């Protein structure tokens, strides 16, 4: 079922969900499959993500990368297969539950609260795990306790001076940065970024690479990007998807020299357009 070089324990009985493959595996999928009315977007994908690494997911358009993200974060329910987070089966859980387990994501298509200020975005993100959001009887001022941390986070992505403007008035690149800072807010153990550099100019791309690098300290990052420069600079491990299946896996250098990957994805120029 699984094509390509799986690195670790995919061979050992993938059917027993409870079994933790290696101590350092934080995220693992077992034969994960998603059907859309007869079209299989993700097909029996078994994936291991080692704790503390940066893992890139690449592949042609429509390979199923975003769908895989949506499965991992609960926005879609798998047709079959399992998703194990530190050995616990989380398939079928709701997005908000998964978020509380320390998984944060950014969206391929920018997804913000257009009418809220940047600081308000971060306050919301920071308040989420505290349950403060349910308190309809207290004053909104109680959110103020997140202000300092919120400003720090904004500063990290270079948006500190814009904390008071509404997200709707940001330029595209800034919106992407805000997406990332939201994902980072609650210090997630696992960070999922869907095309963090899409639509950015070169300078912004490099800034984002640096940002992700910095953010990856002490946590695991899985990201999707078509920009090979980004993949090359960041990824410890690369999984190539094609037509919903794993085509190849390995380090960036392994993968970029893989014949199948070159035909299916990179093309003869080796992806050097970006």
């Amino acid at each position, binding site marked *: 079922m699984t094509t390509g070089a799986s690195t670790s324990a995919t061979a050992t009985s993938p059917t027993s969900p409870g079994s933790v493959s290696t101590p350092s595996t934080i995220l693992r999928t077992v034969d994960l499959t998603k059907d859309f009315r007869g*079209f299989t977007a993700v097909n029996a994908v078994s994936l291991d993500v080692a704790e503390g690494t940066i893992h890139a997911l690449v592949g042609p*358009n429509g390979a199923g990368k975003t769908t895989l993200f949506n499965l991992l974060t609960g926005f879609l329910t798998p047709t079959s297969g399992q998703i194990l987070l530190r050995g616990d089966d989380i398939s079928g859980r709701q997005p908000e539950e998964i978020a509380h387990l320390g998984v944060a994501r950014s969206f391929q298509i920018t997804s913000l609260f257009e009418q809220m200020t940047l600081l308000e975005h971060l306050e919301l993100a920071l308040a989420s795990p505290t349950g403060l959001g349910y308190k309809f009887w207290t004053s909104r001022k109680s959110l103020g306790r997140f202000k300092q941390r919120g400003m720090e986070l904004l500063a990290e992505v270079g948006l500190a001076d814009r904390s008071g403007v509404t997200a709707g008035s940001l330029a595209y690149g800034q919106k992407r940065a805000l997406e990332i800072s939201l994902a980072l807010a609650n210090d997630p153990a696992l960070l999922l970024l869907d095309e963090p550099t899409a*639509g950015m*100019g*070169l*300078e912004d791309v490099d800034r984002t690479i640096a940002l992700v690098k910095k953010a990856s300290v002490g946590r695991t990052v899985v990201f999707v990007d*078509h920009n090979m420069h980004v993949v090359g600079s960041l990824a410890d491990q690369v999984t190539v998807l094609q037509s919903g299946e794993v085509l190849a896996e390995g380090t960036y250098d392994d993968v970029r020299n893989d014949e199948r990957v070159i035909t299916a*994805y990179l093309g003869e120029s080796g992806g050097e*357009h970006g």
Partner: protein
Amino acid sequence: MAERLLTVDTLSAFHGEAQVLRDVSIDVSVGEVVTLVGRNGAGKTTLLRSIMGLHKNTRGSIALDGTTLDGKSADKRARLGIGWVPDDRGIYATLTVEENLSLPPVVDKDASWSLDRIYEQFPVLRERRDFPGTKLSGGEQQMLAMARPLRAGSRLLLLDEPSEGLAPVIVSQIGQIIRDIRSQGVAVLLVEQNVKFASTVADRHNLLAQGEVVESLDNDAFQSRTTELLQHLGM
């Protein structure tokens, strides 16, 4: 020099009170690929929308084939042979892939690509032909958007960042298509942030900064000065 197809003459455009294009003059000839490169927010999309007749708050003139487009509605301009690939791709959710392809009226029978030819070029579209358009992945939607004006047989294509979000192999493929249609006499005005890609397909480049064309140069000059220019533009 081939005949001139599109002429934009001292065009200014406004968003409300803000001026986003300042006296922009560019032209594209038959069989030529001309780019607009520049940072986010430089005004590239606004220029394309103005040519298409979708952005109305403008000053200056735009002519196709020597006749002015002033006062012509967008659908009229499309039927005169301008094909637009919007930056958000503009795929219809309520239409199937094939319906998305056949929606625009064919403007030039001889230039129009057949569905078969399109499917040969993008096999994945054939596979998903009966799916609602927006159920395609981002990149698949981009292919669909590119294919649409080919199907119509437009003679001038306005491409707004066609390489964005595409797998490298598809980017090369798109590049090949652009070169192909150019040789068939189609004119292309290409908006790009991907400078490397732009330099593989274009004849001439216009560098846009803060709504102004700050530099116009041919591809050789562009390639030799890429780094310097990028620095200059802050890209």
